[in-house]
């Protein structure tokens, strides 16, 4: 479904991503693991069209994405919940969700999806007219995911959804991700929380300073010594 090949992305003159290749198959959950500065968010931003590639290519459903502006990429079916959630804090929950559906023209479908999000996250429905900035971290993460889902994406990219959340809230979010997968959404999950991410993932890629070091199925990586040492605190 998504095919990234030899992708190089730079901030100014510094290459943040140094030629990575990976793919996401339809219906899978794929996770990119790595520490700060490994290039995970840069990868997602490049796929979303916010950053230009220096070289390499991104293909989605057989169509190349290079040169496609960010707002058109959403129309192609790729949505992102960005790092740090980046909600429109002064706007209401409902306004945030409606902005998520900005590129859609089927008013009736948007209404149904809005109702679905409120069913998935009841707390958002109950407080739909309150400003997004007033919600707790976990609730804001739900809203960020809900907002991304409002574009009815084929591929949902989540950038560190567990950031700053309690273990219980992290579990809730991870359960939500599994639920979305069961509804047919393909998911690209960027995480530092390796155990949470790998327990869901069909496939995982480990990034270090802009390069993919190794990859395997989620299960295999959970048991991999290198991963256990670096990311799971085992010695």
């Amino acid at each position, binding site marked *: 479904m998504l095919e990234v090949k030899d992708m190089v992305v730079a901030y100014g003159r510094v290459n943040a991503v140094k030629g990575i290749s990976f793919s996401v198959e339809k219906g899978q959950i794929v996770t990119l693991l790595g520490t700060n500065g490994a290039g995970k968010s840069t990868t997602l931003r490049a796929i979303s069209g916010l950053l230009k590639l220096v070289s390499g290519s991104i293909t989605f459903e057989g169509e190349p994405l290079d040169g496609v*502006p*960010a*707002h058109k990429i*959403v129309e192609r079916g790729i949505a992102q919940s960005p790092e740090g959630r980046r909600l429109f804090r002064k*706007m209401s929950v409902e306004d945030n969700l409606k*902005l998520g559906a*900005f590129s859609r023209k089927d008013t009736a479908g948007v209404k149904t999806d809005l109702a679905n999000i409120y069913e998935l996250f009841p707390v958002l429905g109950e407080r739909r007219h309150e400003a997004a900035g007033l919600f707790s971290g976990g609730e804001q993460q739900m809203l960020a995911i809900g907002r991304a889902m409002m574009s009815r994406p084929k591929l949902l990219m989540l950038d560190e959804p567990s950031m700053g959340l309690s273990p219980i809230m992290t579990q809730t979010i991870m359960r939500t991700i599994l639920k979305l997968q069961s509804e047919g959404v393909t998911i690209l999950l960027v995480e530092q929380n390796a155990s949470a991410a790998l327990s869901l993932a069909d496939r995982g890629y480990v990034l270090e300073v802009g390069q993919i070091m190794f990859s395997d199925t989620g299960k295999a990586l959970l048991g991999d010594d290198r991963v256990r040492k670096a990311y799971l605190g085992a010695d």
Partner: protein
Amino acid sequence: MDLFWQQLINGLSLGALYALIAVGYTVVYGIVQLINFAHGEIFMVGAFGAFATWVVMGSPKEMSWQMAVFGLLPAMIVGGMIVSVSMALLTERLAYRPLRDAPRLAPLITAIGISVFLQEFVRLFFGDIPGMPDAKRAIPFPTVIGITGQSLHFGNVTVQISAIFTIGALAACTIFLWFYVNRTKTGRAMVATSQDPDTARLMGINVDRVIMSAFAVGAALAAIAGVAHGLRYGNIDFRMGFLAGLKAFTAAVLGGIGNINGAVVGGLVLGVVESMATTFIPGQFGSPAWKDVWAFVLLILVLVFRPQGLLGAKVVDRA
């Protein structure tokens, strides 16, 4: 007491003129953090566009007041808007967009350059357009029968019809802006972009288009101000945008730059302060020559004691 009311109404109508221009500074700043110093010239070009529309219509002079107010005036406003909006979009596309990622100083200097360019362009070339008079000196603005030179009297207080037009136009524009920002899809996209442009892109918002609509909305209001200026002072000239633009910028900062309501309030406050200062400050400091001084004294005071402006600087938010 009559004098107070007289100066209040004078101040409000002058302030409404500032406010109509100030909205353009604030909307553009709210989205791209650019002080568009050429905006005063967009106002000037709008006035010239309205004038040119009148010429193209055959320079009509004799008509009923109904024809003038409901036919000629709207035509001139639309003509002025077409000119000012096209000019604003052209400068955005050709001059500002290529500098979107440059250091902030670059577009600022460019804006000053565009301002000088537009002034000189009108001064040197307006008269070369077939049918148009030479613009090296002030041009008499067309008379709109029923408005120009007409006034109402309340006891000893005189209210120019042109003042009523200006204040009415501001009221209508404020309502329109509220509706636009809060109730239309483009308006919501504008608020989102002003809060976080990258995330707005992730929502599928075409940020370039949002920026263009910000320039267009500001220019349209500036064109209305251009017509109001012509009706109020009876003439227009290529320099009219400089001081008016500076005052409107002051008004925008006064109200809190980036805040649409702030621009409206800031404009009105500035107009009233100017008009009151020239009346109630004793001695030579209250002479008309000092009115600009008081306007900028007010700006400095606000910048020192309330730098966020009267209503608080913020991104373009609930209008």
